[in-house]
């Protein structure tokens, strides 16, 4: 039942933590840590859920998301955005860019799982 998750994040420790959490629940987790070619990687891997960090080297998560929403095959892709900047305007920017869900670091592991699960169910 579990699907395929693509995680785009540059902090190795956070990648490791999320991979651990999701894979124990049966998700297949791919990771990528650079912003510049992130959109291409998403198209190539076509995951069920995308977890996208905002502060990425090379390109911001918002730009990547806007890019994805502009393309027909990724238009509907469920995207969970993660950010370490806890301000309201970051949430607004995420919503405007087309994020399905938005989470502020640090998060609890259960939250991440719930979020990923709910995204696959609704889609």
């Amino acid at each position, binding site marked *: 039942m579990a699907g395929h998750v693509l995680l785009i994040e540059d*902090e190795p420790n956070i990648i490791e933590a999320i991979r*651990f959490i999701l894979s124990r629940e049966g998700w297949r987790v791919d990771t990528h840590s650079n912003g510049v070619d992130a959109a291409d990687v998403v198209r190539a891997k076509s995951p069920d859920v995308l977890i996208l960090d905002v502060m990425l080297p090379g390109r911001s998560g918002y730009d990547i998301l806007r890019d994805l929403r502009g393309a027909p095959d990724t238009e509907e892709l469920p995207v969970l955005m993660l950010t*370490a900047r*806890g301000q309201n305007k970051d949430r607004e920017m995420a919503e405007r860019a087309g994020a399905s869900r938005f989470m502020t670091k640090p998060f609890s*592991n259960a939250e991440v799982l719930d979020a990923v699960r709910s995204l696959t169910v609704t889609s």
Partner: protein
Amino acid sequence: MTMLNALAAISILYVFFLFAVAFFAERAARRGRGNWLHTPIIYTLSLSIYCTAWTFYGAVGSAARNGFEYLTIYLGPSLVLIGWWWVLRKLVRIGRSQRITSVADLISSRYGKSNLLGVGVTLLAVVGTTPYIALQLQSVVLSVEVFSGAPDGMANNQPTALWVAVGLAIFTVIFGTRNLDANERHHGVVMAIAVEAIVKLAALLAVGIFVVWGISGGVGPVLDRIDASALGRWEVQGGRWAGLLFLSAAAFLCLPRMFQVMVVENDNDAQLRMAAWAFPLYLMLMSLFILPIAVVGLDVLPEGSNPDLFVLTVPLAFGQDGLAMLSFLGGFSSATSMVIVAAIALSTMVSNHIVMPLWLRFNETRVSVSGDVRNVVLVSRRVSIAGVLALGYLYYAQSGGGAALATIGLVAFTGVAQVLPALLGGIFWRGATRAGAFAGLTVGFLVWLYTLYLPSFGSGAFVPESWLETGPFGVMWLNPQALFGITGIDPLLHAVLWSFFLNTIAFFGVSLASFPSPLERLQGAQFVNVQQATGPRSWSQSGAQAEDLMVMAQRILGAADAQALFLREARRQGLDGHLPMTSPEFLEVLERELAGSVGAATAHAMIGQIVGGMSISVADLMAVADETAQMMETSARLEAQSRELTRTAAQLRAANDKLTRLSVQKDAFLSQISHELRTPMTSIRAFSEILRDTDGITREEQNRYASIIHDEAIRLTRLLDDLLDLSVLENGQVSLNIGQGVLSDVLDRAVAAALAHGDEQVLMIHRHRSREEVILNTDTERLSQVFINLIANARKYCDAGRPELSIHVEQIAGSVNVDFVDNGSGVAPEAQDVIFEKFARVSDQKAGGAGLGLAICRQIVSRLGGEISYLPGRGGAAFRVSLPLNQALAAQ
């Protein structure tokens, strides 16, 4: 003859006494101790020159001949003074504010400084006054004859008149042209005539008292005696009574000598306020005993005695030689005071309106030398005085004395009073014009000449007898004494009526029809509105003149500059005070200074105005100067305000921009902090939960996750340390621990600390220890923190295959440079500007730093008085720490 000798002796003593009085008064005034000279009582007494010998002797004669009519001559002036609020108050204020020097000056100045009018009025005054002076000479001669006992006739006494004329000329020249200030006040003369006023009043009262109580036996009997005499009925011609009342009032205002004492010599309103009640009383006392003396004289003296001399002959007849002597002195006083003042007034007019204009016309080139003009004015005044007296004497000698002269008094009054319409119109009616005044004066003068003056010499003298019978060339309605067929009234009244009527009509009509020049309109406004104009100004001292110049200069140049200029000039003249003398040199300097501010022409006009003799009044120019200064001030203030506003607006904009920028920076900073804090916390929380919640984690996994948590916790701590460090450094709250240290030691410690954690790449470090033996006086802990940071950066970011770092130490001109150069690819040019900013992490690599290191370094170095910079083009990344060496040297 002994009596005559006594008389001569007393007269000469009296004259010396007057000289002394005049001299001391003049000296007191010059020494500034003359306040008492301005007292109202002196002013009031000086007005008494109205009572001449013609009134002193002639009033009794007139009363003996015409009864009560003589009173009108005194009632008219009394009314003028009682009604001072109407005319005199305004007249004296105009006189003071416009510095009027004579009635001719008043008319001329009111009508736009018309010299033609000035000349006209002057001629009128000379024609009207000369017979009067002759009359005074005659009275002196007649009174002397009374004592000499010689028969009537003047052949023997021609010398008396001549000596009197010469003596008066000398007195007048001495005291009348002594000072030539802008004002025409003569303290000596005024004081002398005030004394004479007392003498003549005392003399007349003494004679009167003698007549009433000494001869008649009291008030009751004398009244009975009057009623019983030929004068015992109130029989006056109504027309003459009213006409003479008017004529004397008019003449009182217009007579040159009255104008002189009343307006020109006036100093303040208080003088006039006292004269308003005191002078009518004086006149009343002067006329009180006239009728009794006349009645008694007619009674006791033989038939045919000259009633004009009753004042002398009645006491003589009763053997009162002393009283007669006093009476003589009274008459002498009356005659001399009148002649002196009239000569001054006339000479002023003649000199100002006739001699000076002519002289200036023929000597245009010499006017520039002002001392020259002053001398000319003095000479011209003196010559004029002598001329006026000579004219009076000649008139007396030619007229043959006798009755012909006695009637001339009223004739002269009528002529002089022709000025009245132009004068009153000028001060009350702004519509009065020069053309109107000229027309009125001309018409009035001609009518007076034709109907009264010429016929007064007797028919046949100037006017053919037939003219008075049938009119000129048989034209009856042109008969000089019955114009337009009006016959049956007194010739004097006829002349008064016609001259004033036609004069006024011409004045009014032509004024209405003509249009005044700008200067006339300006002067008209000044005269008519004198009450609203600036208060009376005193021009009595030349100091006041310098002061006025000072006031003006301050308004134009500004107080400080003007005062400095005046002080400098005063010093140059060798004076102690702040005001220089108004010498030509000083005026030239001042004019040049002022010209710089207001233009040459204006400056010349303004100074000319204050030091005398130009057209527009000072008050006007002051007003202009004030306005200009105010306008300049206002506009300067507005400009300044506008500049200020612009500056403030710019400052506000800058402040706003800065705040906006700061706000953006603060947001970015908070964002960054948030990010930097949350990232390690995320890992810590995630792995903590994993460790807590997950079953069946392997031992290795447990260890690994625990060490991640540990590392991230350390990262957090370091970040917080850095933030605190930076905050403290930025706020300047850091306390430096200054001490001596050797640079090589500091570097040793730094290298050791930076390379301590061996899990990163290996860095080769090259140093030249010999150069590092520099003693520094600094906070070595902080300095080593900087070095550690730089070495650690090289170790983290140097991307060379075999990373190497060279540390060069170099002493250059008061500072020591410590360069850290690695062999990597260096910092990209576009990033070089920002590497010292907070969170400016340029590398993609994860280095575990928050990007605060170099920001902290910069803060520390600047606290230590040095500088840290990036050196481009040195192969790899190159940082230079530059520290001041003076401290280092001082330490050595």
